[in-house]
């Protein structure tokens, strides 16, 4: 069974639509999206609310979870870098994990086959 990898991309919500489009273009057909809160170097900010400091130390982020096998991980990463890069803090991070198996419920297919989103 060839290697299956999970790529987690955590970034700004604003960039989501564009990223999704570009990933589609390189053949990423499935993804799962989470609305999360995050902090990293980007430490949040302090706003004033009724004259009192309001520390917002978790910012809304979006996490894309993409499990790939045929599409090379490097390609996904380079697209993500390209689309998401602004040079500002908060561009986000990508985390890579190993996936042991995938099952497609509708067909019962396992592994790499289960990831082939072609009908």
């Amino acid at each position: 069974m060839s290697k299956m990898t999970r790529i987690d991309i955590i970034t700004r919500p604003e960039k989501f639509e564009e990223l999704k489009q570009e990933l589609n273009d390189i053949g990423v057909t499935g993804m799962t999206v989470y609305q999360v809160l995050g902090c990293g170097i980007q430490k949040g900010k302090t706003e004033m609310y009724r004259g009192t400091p309001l520390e917002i130390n978790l910012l809304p982020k979006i996490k894309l979870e993409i499990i790939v096998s045929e599409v090379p991980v490097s390609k996904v990463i380079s697209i993500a870098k390209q689309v998401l890069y602004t040079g500002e803090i908060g561009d986000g991070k990508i985390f890579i994990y190993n996936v042991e198996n995938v099952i497609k419920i509708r067909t019962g297919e396992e592994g790499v086959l289960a990831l082939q989103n072609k009908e």
Partner: protein
Amino acid sequence: MTDYIVNSMWVFIASVLVFLMHAGFSMVEVGFTQSKNAVNIIMKNFVTVAIGVIAYFIVGFAFMYGKDAGGIIGTNMFFLINKPDSMGGVMFESFFFFQAIFAATCVTIVSGAVAGRTKFSAYVIFAIFAVVVIYPLIGHWIWGGGFLSKLGFIDFAGGTAVHAVGGFCALVGAKLVGPRKGKYKEGRAKAIPGHNIPLAALGVLILWFGWFGFNPGSTLDITSPTTMHAAITTLLSGAVATLAALVFSKVKYGKPDAGLTLNGALAGLVGITAGASMVDYFGAIIIGLICGIMMVISVQFIDQKVKIDDPVGAISVHGLCGALGTIFVGLFSVTDGLFYGGGLSLLGIQVFGVLICGATAISLSMVVFGIMKKTKGIRITKEMEDSGIDKIEHGISAYISL
């Protein structure tokens, strides 16, 4: 057809407008507090209406408008027994209806200030006491033929009787119950933002709408242009204060603050309440301006210096602006105000009246909240506060999705 009929009708319609203010208060308080306590806020508002009406019917009205005893308190018409046919120039029924709906309004002011950490039962006990004793007592002094009215103290529609009294009780309640957990860290105030600004905005606009019953209705006389004059001053003061709070918060904090802008509208409306019928347009504008700005300053001052946690700004909006507005009558009244050549006499009376009423409201609510604090406790547990009053005290969340 007499003026009597038309005025009775008018007072009745005004009361109905005032009734919707309960929806306004509920939405403002819900919007300006955290979602985990929204059901509790709703329950407090409903219980306030229910208790307010019932208690006022049984004893409150009698204390307030019953036969005067020594300028201090009314003594008959409990359960409306032996009610007259007319009162204040209108049908008794209209008069009572108007007053009964006002009564519940005063108490409601407190519920927002103590939101998020107060025991439901403690609030209920306070509400009963307030509508049975505090509001009718002071109301009697001001409107029911008591010593303040004899002295010439003027509070047109309740700048002091309703708002300042409510606001001062709110001050005591919020002080005694203590700040919400996480509000002060190492002595520094932290914001705990409300969870639904659009709902709060809806509430403010509903309140404003109700205010056109609250203020103009208080003339009890639609045949006189004074009533509509009071509506215009109400409109102007509210508008100016909205703008003042918006601009002032922008200058002070860099961005136009939504919460303060909404509070600004209320500050202007509260500020004009005591004198709506007797100040002119320019008076109304200046009152709105001062109240809008002072409220912003006060909200920060109470939050950061006095360190009393008032989630909705009730102390500043109702307490401060209610008191200021009452005193301003002594300055801006076109008949007797200082700025209109009326000398210092009315001003003195106004200041005296506000002080007396303020002191009374503060002492009485200190007694009630104080005794409860010593005995049954007024504060929810740390766990309940963490996970929200709704889940634990009412067994439900305000918003359920899955």
